[in-house]
């Protein structure tokens, strides 16, 4: 069976800077795949190219067998890819319920159905009691939850999560992992960019490591920690050293 998402030879050039220089990755349906790499490796750029926010210079991105590289952003979402942002992008003057309803309207054109589904999703992510709060009035952790709710409301088959754990307290991280397990249990496939390795280790079935815009490893989390190239890539960037070392204290 071919994977849900298949990325081959992804290249993105910004002027003279080659941010991506041949990224390959596969995401199997129903799995949780983690995309990691040192700072500046091109993780966010790769994410933007997959989600449709940026047009890759070369390479292919196939989602359910359809080529989506360079497709308009909103059409990628309509095909079934939802996403969150590294720096939260809320609809500031909408309540949590309104923002989630906006997502739900993609597959439910009638407001009544969309609101009902949004209520359900908000309960699922644990924001039911805050549904009348304005987006800008939520805490960082709740804003991130709201972004997940908004993306889930579009009923994606693939959910792209960009550093959802960053900036959260350990307790909040724990709750986020719990939510991730439940999202996977719903049958939604997840591809996530993450720095905090130790929380990912137990749940990521598949790890892809990129460095300097190239895929250097693809395999299990345990394999990544032992891989010579991966260790080299992280050691080459001392600031990031802790990111992977904390995985095996």
């Amino acid at each position, binding site marked *: 069976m071919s994977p849900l998402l298949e990325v081959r030879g992804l290249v993105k050039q910004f002027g003279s800077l080659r941010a991506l220089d041949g990224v390959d990755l596969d995401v199997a349906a129903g799995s949780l795949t983690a995309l990691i790499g040192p700072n500046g490796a091109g993780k966010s750029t790769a994410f933007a190219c997959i989600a449709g926010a940026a047009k890759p210079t070369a390479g292919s991105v196939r989602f359910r067998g359809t080529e989506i590289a360079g497709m*308009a952003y909103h059409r990628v979402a309509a095909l079934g890819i939802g996403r969150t*942002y590294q720096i939260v992008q809320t609809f500031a*003057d*909408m309540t949590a319920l309104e923002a989630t309803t*906006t997502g739900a309207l*993609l597959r439910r054109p009638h*407001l009544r159905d*969309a609101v009902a589904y949004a209520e359900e999703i908000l309960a699922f992510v644990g924001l039911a009691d805050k549904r*009348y709060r*304005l987006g800008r009035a939520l805490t960082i952790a709740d804003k991130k939850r709201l972004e997940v709710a908004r993306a889930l409301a579009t009923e994606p088959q693939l959910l792209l999560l960009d550093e959802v754990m960053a900036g959260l307290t350990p307790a909040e991280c724990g709750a986020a992992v719990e939510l991730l397990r439940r999202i996977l249990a719903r049958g939604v496939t997840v591809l996530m960019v993450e720095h905090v390795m130790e929380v990912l280790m137990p749940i990521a079935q598949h790890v892809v490591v990129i460095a300097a815009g190239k895929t250097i490893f693809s395999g299990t989390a345990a394999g990544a920690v032992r891989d010579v190239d991966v260790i080299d890539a992280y050691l080459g960037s001392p600031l990031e050293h802790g990111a992977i070392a904390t995985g095996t204290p």
Partner: protein
Amino acid sequence: MRAHLIALGAIVVVVAAAVFGLRSAVALDLLFTLLLYAVLGQSWNWISGYGGNISFGHAIFFGCGAYASALCVTHGLSPWLAIPAGALVAALLAIVTGFPTLALRGHYFSIATIAVAALVDAFVRTTPWLGKATGFELPIAPGWATMQFPQKGTYVALALILFAAVQLATMALERSRMGYYLRALRANHAAAAAVGIDERRVKLVAFAWSATMAAVAGVLYAQYTLFVDPPSTIALAISIDIALIGVVGGIGTLWGPAVGALVYVVLAKAVALQLGGAGKGYDLVIYGAIICLIAALRPYGIVGTIVDALRRRRGAEAAA
């Protein structure tokens, strides 16, 4: 929702009573102007308030209706025909000019609307069949077919119907996919695209409806004043007035434009009564001060502030 319907019903009843009760031509004139401005403000509000594309050239759509009316009359047709014709031309103009410009952000869009309006203005002023700079004076011919009435009250009643229709349409907008999508686009266009919103399509549709409303108001206005020329319909000054009304009451709210129109008409009249011709400018000082205050303290305007407060209260009740 029900509260809004009751409020609208109450306004309709009060104004309708005034139409029968009032004999003062001045009072009826004020009422007509108020309703017309409320419609124009709401029309602006669709694209600039809900959608966040601030237009300083909205008068051209009002002009489409006014000129359609003048052309129908001068060609021996009923001005009622100008309602669909003017609306169609306005919607097409909105689509043609909006297609390339609606994707421009912030001031780029605002200045583009000024440029487009200036080009339309220059076109009208130099086109013989549009009456060039002198415009049209419409012949007096009272009757339903000619949309001319001996009683000012009849115009007020028509304006009231138009106002009620526009308010109902806006209530529907607020409870529709397009209304949610416009607000989402205004708040964050990238995040909006990420939930599958096609910005260009949503905004073009909103812009076309917005232009349609302004055009219908233009038809009524032309038949009321029986005079159509560039300064009274499509000039930059009219566009600025429309934007002013839209901002003062609160952008992106159902009642903001009506409140803005009320403030506008009352202030203009009060200043004129108090100070006569010498009072020129004082009303501008007050609008200017209101807009500055709103922009600095409460960007969503008078009504926006109330809506926020209500939302918070409803949230508190739900939590309790």
